[in-house]
């Protein structure tokens, strides 16, 4: 139980720092809003989607993919922030000296990142639905499940790579370069599942894709948990 308490203490510490400074969250919220506007300018808010048909705009048709692009690009900010804070204040040393299993540090950092990411998503999803005029109310439970699974995969790999690149000079360049190739399976499965939720699941594929997404999460989580202790070594 000791490790669970240690992880929980780390989560509380990270959320407290974030609540007091709001540095990551404010940056993320503005960035996410900007991404939503840029999609709208780039794709045209009124353009009738050619592939979309049936009175849908292109933005409405592409929403599942755009949502995940926005989540991944915005989430990167939270991830790089999570270990940068430690580097700035010499917290990495303290983390390395933290008693118990290093997996507790990974679990704590991962949980804190997930909570910050989730808070951002809880704003991003309704705001984008309102801006792009999409009716999500009755699809919300399934959508939140898919978003939670996708975010778990993103944060699992992201926390690992954020720790690995924390003491690099070019960490802001290296984090996306290393992270995005590994996230390809997550984005494929997450976008597919989100599309099925939003557009309707005619072939009964949704459950399969949710299981695939869960399986990918499980594999990535296992690999990152096992190797994390080497990632924060000095």
């Amino acid at each position: 139980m000791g490790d669970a308490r240690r992880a929980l203490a780390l989560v509380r510490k990270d959320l407290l720092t974030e609540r007091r400074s709001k540095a990551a969250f404010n940056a993320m919220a503005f960035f996410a809003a900007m991404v939503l506007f840029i999609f709208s300018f780039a794709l045209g808010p009124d353009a009738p989607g050619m592939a979309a048909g049936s009175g849908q705009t292109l933005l409405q048709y592409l929403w599942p993919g755009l949502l995940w692009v926005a989540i991944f690009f915005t989430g990167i900010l939270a991830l790089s922030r999570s270990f940068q804070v430690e580097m700035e204040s010499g917290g990495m040393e303290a983390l390395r000296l933290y008693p118990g299993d290093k997996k507790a540090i990974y679990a704590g950092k991962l949980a804190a990142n997930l909570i910050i990411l989730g808070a951002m998503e809880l704003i991003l999803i309704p705001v984008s639905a309102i801006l792009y005029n999409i009716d999500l109310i009755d699809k919300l439970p399934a959508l939140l499940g898919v978003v939670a699974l996708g975010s778990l995969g993103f944060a699992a790999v992201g926390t690992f790579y954020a720790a690995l690149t924390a003491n690099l000079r070019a960490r802001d360049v290296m984090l996306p370069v290393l992270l995005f190739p590994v996230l390809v399976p997550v984005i494929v499965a997450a976008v597919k599942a989100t599309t099925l939720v939003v557009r309707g699941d005619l072939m009964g594929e949704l459950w399969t894709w949710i299981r695939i997404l869960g399986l990918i999460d499980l594999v990535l989580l296992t690999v990152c948990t096992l190797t994390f202790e080497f990632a924060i070594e000095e």
Partner: protein
Amino acid sequence: MTADKFGKICGIAALVLLAVGLATGMLVAPRERIMGDVYRIMFVHFPSWVGTAAGYLTAFVASIAYIKTRDFKWDYWGQAGAEVGLLFNVTGLITGALWGRPTWGVYWTWDPRLTTTAIMAITFAGYLVLRAFMEDPESRARAASLVAIVGFVNVPIVYFSVRWWRTLHQVQSSPETVDPQMVWPLRAMMLAFLLLGVFMMTRRVMLARLRGEEEMEMVRLEVARD
């Protein structure tokens, strides 16, 4: 030095096999019924993937060995494997695109194999970029090893996720019976590229060892000065 000698033997054997394989592949093997001479790029394209696999597999195994033993020898092998693997990977992608244009009508398509190999190239290019950004030999070796391990484990996941993603669109190609006059040059070229890869990796390891020892000497001098 046994690794040096082994590498030399591999290099000479690769040279002979390359000459034999290219000569028979270009001149002796018959034209393909539908593709004509275009198919001959396969004698370079397919063996490239043998070299890619050999390089990345070496990088993966050496990275695990480095994390376990912390012996710099394995870091040199990891770097050599990643570089040689990436070289063959890019060769394979370019020859594939050149073949795809006259045959499929497009340079690129989002087929699982194409996508996976492209992601592999990006992953290991990231590995090399990461190495370039890190100066401390120990933390560089450690971080690079972790990137190679996670990146390599990710390859099959990418393959299957893209395959399921594209199932409805992609028609699987069926295995065809191949003329023995085409098979033998191909086998010769595959073996030649494998040996070429081993030769290049042994050279790369020797170079990396020299650089590594030089770096260690610099560190020692700095410590001595303080």
